[in-house]
């Protein structure tokens, strides 16, 4: 098992749930399939999903919702 750090592909504001007040996309221990949405990044008034590239077990987010992330900064960890 390896821990994989997922980064935001785009600069912008990270949202960990689909809408305010809703549960986060993934909680620690959740299984992740390739293509699952892990977070949304708001960039230039568009919301783009951050999707998992491979399957695994979700370990947790490394940032809070509404954090501003640059590409390459870690968002969350998945055990693959």
């Amino acid at each position, binding site marked *: 098992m390896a821990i994989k750090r997922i980064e935001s592909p785009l600069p912008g504001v990270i949202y960990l749930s689909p809408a305010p007040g809703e549960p986060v996309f993934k909680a620690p221990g959740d299984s992740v399939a390739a293509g699952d949405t892990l977070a949304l990044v708001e*960039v*230039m008034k568009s919301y783009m999903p951050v999707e998992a590239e491979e399957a695994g077990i979700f370990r947790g987010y490394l940032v809070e919702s509404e954090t501003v992330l640059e590409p390459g900064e870690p968002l969350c960890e998945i055990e693959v």
Partner: protein
Amino acid sequence: MAPIRKLLIANRGEIAVRIQRAARGLGIGTVQVVSEADRDMLAARMADEVIVLGPPAASKSYLAVDRLLDALRDSGADAVHPGYGFLSENADFARAVTAMGRIFVGPDADTIERMGDKVNARQAAIAAGVPVVPGSEGRIEGLEQALSLAGEIGYPVMVKAAAGGGGRGIRVSHTAGELAAAIPTAMAEARAGFGDPGLYLEAYVEKARHIEVQILGDGEDVIHLHERECSLQRRRQKVWEEAPAAMLDPGLRAELCASAVRLSRAVRYRGAGTMEYLYDPKRQAFYFIEMNTRIQVEHPVTEMVTGVDLVREMLLIAGGGKLSMTQEDVRCTGHAIEVRINAENPARNFLPNPGHIETLRVPEGPGVRFDGGIYPGYRVPPFYDSLLGKLIVAGDSREQAFDRLAAALESLEIGPIATTAALHRALVQEPDMRAGAVSTRWLEDWLEGPGVAVIAEGRRDPVA
């Protein structure tokens, strides 16, 4: 009202730069408000004073009315120009500025409220004798009434469920036979889908074009500065605009502009405003849709064909001045085109592309203008819309304007981020574009068809 001496600019990006220039030209001092992410923007570098409103999120900066009112009080500015977007059509903000004894550069709050509401604006249009999309004023009572109304309006018509929303439950009929067949089914579907069989009927506009009229008023007199065509849209966002609307018959064009003046006179309009219309090429008719009570992104094409500096006129009128010209003074000469240069990658489904601008080379020459908010070394923040600037060209004829645009796009260099310049380089070569054979759906159809391949082929922007 006394002439403005110190102006607060409640906006960002290219329009903030545009307003700074107009203020400078009038000897007006400038206060630029910025978010924490915008301290380095071009307009902030140009301004006499800069005030930081708050964090990057627009809700905590450019939309934060209390913070803006504080900045207005602290700076001692006597007027606010709201630009477009943000608080430009916010009646409460306009009212609060006026209540502080300062000038809101735009119409009064009551006009913003009245014309900003689609239903009210439509009623004002009908009262002023301005055509709106013809249809049943309420529900249609049955087949006979539907057929008789459709006969008056002319085909094609569409029926839609009175209780439906968006595009749901819409049926288009091209003949009386089709309509007679469609009505019972549409009623049954409406009952099944919405629990209500009620139907509306209205004219269906095939190959609709978006035409709009620029107006300028001082609260008593109103003039028009001719029309623009903005049919090229993607996801309801305009990407390419022209002035005048070359495909309109001269008689119809005169009628269109006169109707916009009638409507704005009826509301004693003050400032710059735009009446938006849908043009139906088949019926050769125009229908009022809505009014924008602010300066618009595409205002430069009007400036290029009329020679009128619209933002300067706004500032003069807001300072208590009368219109500086009569309708007879306004001449529409030649043809102008504006293309929007956005930080989006057209080859990757318009993926937003903020980041550092390292190279910037802007075309120059007769009839070429670039309204931008960027400079080499500037970092485009991810928090706001993607408009970097607008390339505007004018020529004696539409053909010359196209040729100038093609040449100007060749010498425009923005890098390394991807921009929509690549889209425009492809569009300027498209036969349909040159022929003006477009509608509000043309661009999306083209992008779904050959467009993306054509853009990728001609692309010079570095791949981001």
